[in-house]
């Protein structure tokens, strides 16, 4: 009864909101000399810590290309959107970028959840997404270019290295989400297949900070090495509590799949010293092109390290620009066709290319963390590895059909 009089007022309000929505949104101006691209990463929320750095690398690449005259004679205008660490926001913003801003392509996404949420949007509108982060595979879409590693390019090389070093008993520890569970599923098959043993498998809720029980279980299982797929802040808790429990990396080696230079800086190199990581790029790669990239990035963001997803985010822009140039068009369909027929050497990843399944061909590296926060490269795979989205041992009979 209370709201009778204001009902009509409020009604006007609803209509006003709906109308304001159209007015407030500046629709993108497709000026003649520019081309809009979307950059969609989490600028807020739990994932911002990682995704902001990729956004920076992406923007750096755009600046550099613009400085050289842009692409097809047009300056690239990035439209940066915030995914807010929320997959539904990624879907919403992806839709905005494609439908409202009419961008030529989108660079972005970090978590599998955000990629999975954006996928239907890109398929619906036939857009093109450049995804820069290593992931669990089991997906290939014509509307996504996967420059991050497939499991066979990061996890399996690490296992190969561990086996060569004589580590037989492996403890699998991860955050409770898709990448660790799938990675460990693949790892278990391969460990058993290769004659090793899985000493244990534990998952901690995302953001979990209590590792007392896990460390206790590790002590009882007595593995030779831990394969760690923990995400984000949980790593800080894990390494602090391992050190407190008298198990620093020097005593019980840890191979991490989600700790790159950025995370190492956040966790504190002193805690991580001597632990291992497997990536397809390290800042310390001696390639001269890489040195230039690192120098350019640090000129813009002093003191900030460069890592694997950033390198891929940077590469994605160059790959897109090259493909556009080759195709002579911004049409996603033509661009993705062109992208798989080119080779790139613009980043320190060496000479790379996109395979027919739209994933990147790349080399696997194992590094050991130094007190400086940099990784010393211990090992590298024999040449670039072809991407395999579906691990044949774990998912027999599944192949990528575009």
């Amino acid at each position, binding site marked *: 009864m209370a709201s009778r*009089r204001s009902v009509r007022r409020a009604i006007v309000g*609803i209509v006003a909101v*709906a109308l304001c929505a*159209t007015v407030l949104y500046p629709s993108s101006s497709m000026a003649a000399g520019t081309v809009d691209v979307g950059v969609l990463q989490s600028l807020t929320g739990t994932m911002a810590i990682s995704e902001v750095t990729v956004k920076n690398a992406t923007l750096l690449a755009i600046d550099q290309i613009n400085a050289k005259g842009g692409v097809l004679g047009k300056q690239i205008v990035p439209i940066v*959107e*915030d995914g*807010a660490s929320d*997959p*539904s926001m990624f879907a919403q913003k992806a839709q905005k970028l494609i439908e409202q801003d009419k961008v030529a392509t989108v660079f972005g996404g970090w978590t599998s959840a955000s990629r999975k949420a954006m996928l239907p949007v890109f398929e619906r509108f036939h857009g093109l997404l450049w995804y820069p982060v290593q992931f669990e595979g089991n997906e290939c879409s014509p509307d996504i270019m996967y420059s991050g590693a497939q499991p066979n390019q990061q996890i399996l090389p690490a296992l190969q290295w561990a086996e060569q070093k004589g580590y037989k008993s492996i403890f699998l520890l991860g955050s409770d989400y898709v990448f660790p*569970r799938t990675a460990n599923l693949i790892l278990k098959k391969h460990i058993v297949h290769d004659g090793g043993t899985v000493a244990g498998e534990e998952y901690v809720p995302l953001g979990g900070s209590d590792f007392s029980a896990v460390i206790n279980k590790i002590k009882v299982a007595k593995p030779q090495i831990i394969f760690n797929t923990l995400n984000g802040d949980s790593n800080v808790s894990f390494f602090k509590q391992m050190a407190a429990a008298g198990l620093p990396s020097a005593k019980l080696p840890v191979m991490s799949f989600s700790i790159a230079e950025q995370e190492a800086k956040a966790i504190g190199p002193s805690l991580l010293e001597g632990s291992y990581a497997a990536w397809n790029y390290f800042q310390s790669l001696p390639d001269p092109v890489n040195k230039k990239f690192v120098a350019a990035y640090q000129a813009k963001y002093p003191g900030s390290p460069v890592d694997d997803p950033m390198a891929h985010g940077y590469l994605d822009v160059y790959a897109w620009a090259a493909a556009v140039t080759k195709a002579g068009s911004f049409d996603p369909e033509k661009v993705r066709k062109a992208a798989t027929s080119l080779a790139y050497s613009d980043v320190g990843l060496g000479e790379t290319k996109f395979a027919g399944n739209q994933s990147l061909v790349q080399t696997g590296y194992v590094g050991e963390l130094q007190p400086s926060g940099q990784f010393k490269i211990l090992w590298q795979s024999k040449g670039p590895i072809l991407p395999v989205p579906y691990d044949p041992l774990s998912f027999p009979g599944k192949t990528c059909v575009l």
Partner: protein
Amino acid sequence: MIRRELGLVLVLVAAACAPLYLPAYELSLLGRFLALAVLAMGISLIWGTGGILSLGQGVFFGLGGYAVAMHLKLASADPGAVPDFMQWSGLNTLPWWWTPFGNPAFAIAAAVIIPGTAAAALAYLVFRRRVTGSYFAIITQALALAATTFIISQQQYTGGFNGLTGFTSAFGFALGDQRTQFGLYWVTVGIVAVTFVAVRALQGSLFGKVLLAVRDGENRVRFLGYDPLPFKVIAFAIAGVLAGVAGALVTLDLGVISPAMFGVVPSIEMVIWVAVGGRNSLLGAIVGTLIVNFGKDWISSVFPDLWLHVVGAVFVLVVTVAPRGIVGLMQSVRTRSLRLRPVTPPALVE
């Protein structure tokens, strides 16, 4: 009376014609936020009328969303194959409790019944022992945390952190098709209208009056011969159903449901929609939902760093300066000249 109903009909017509004058992206946002408004009306019912603050409405939203998503997932899978995430989680046969969701009618019914039943069960167990509102708020927040943790940990059955996505068609309609989008929008507008009328009727009934009285003093109602328990349980179940419906609609619209959409933080954001609009007003719930969500979409695009500051400030300001929200502010502007109202509405005394 007639003028008021006329106003409502006008808004309804304006909303129904939105596809004619709104650009596609704004239209899809409006549809999504209107679906969320269904959930917000449920919060208005339990919080504004019933005095029950739930920080776990997201859970019921999620249950509704998952019920529909499970059907979409089965409908999108190759015949005879299990959904993709089960394959890469090492599961090769469909769990028995997934099977009935292959039936669209079952899935739609489940999207309503499961959240309603879960809400009723929770409310019964907690309110049975006359636990106070603060306890209930905290328990529902713990529920939101536990539910998301649980769903994430059961990846082989639920899709884990990624949730369920990758649907191609919904109930025989192609999801990417613009006509499907329009149809879904109109269904949403229809559900909002029906919900609004139904909840308003409920608030006007003796049930609503007793519920309002329960909010201000549970014991007083008890000593008038009413058992507050069924009133609170039924109201909470209705809010649960509305949250489930909203979850189903948003899942259809967005093509994804995942734990990140209904955990602790989204659940408390749902409360702020209603607080901004005006917790005691059903229209306030709708207005607040639209304003906060459009605001979020806009501010987080233009000033991403500012968004949390704005939300935080809105929380503080709404509670301290405008506890009856936007609608309350407009009301007091209109009624101040007519008669003096008590400064602190009784609703604020828990």
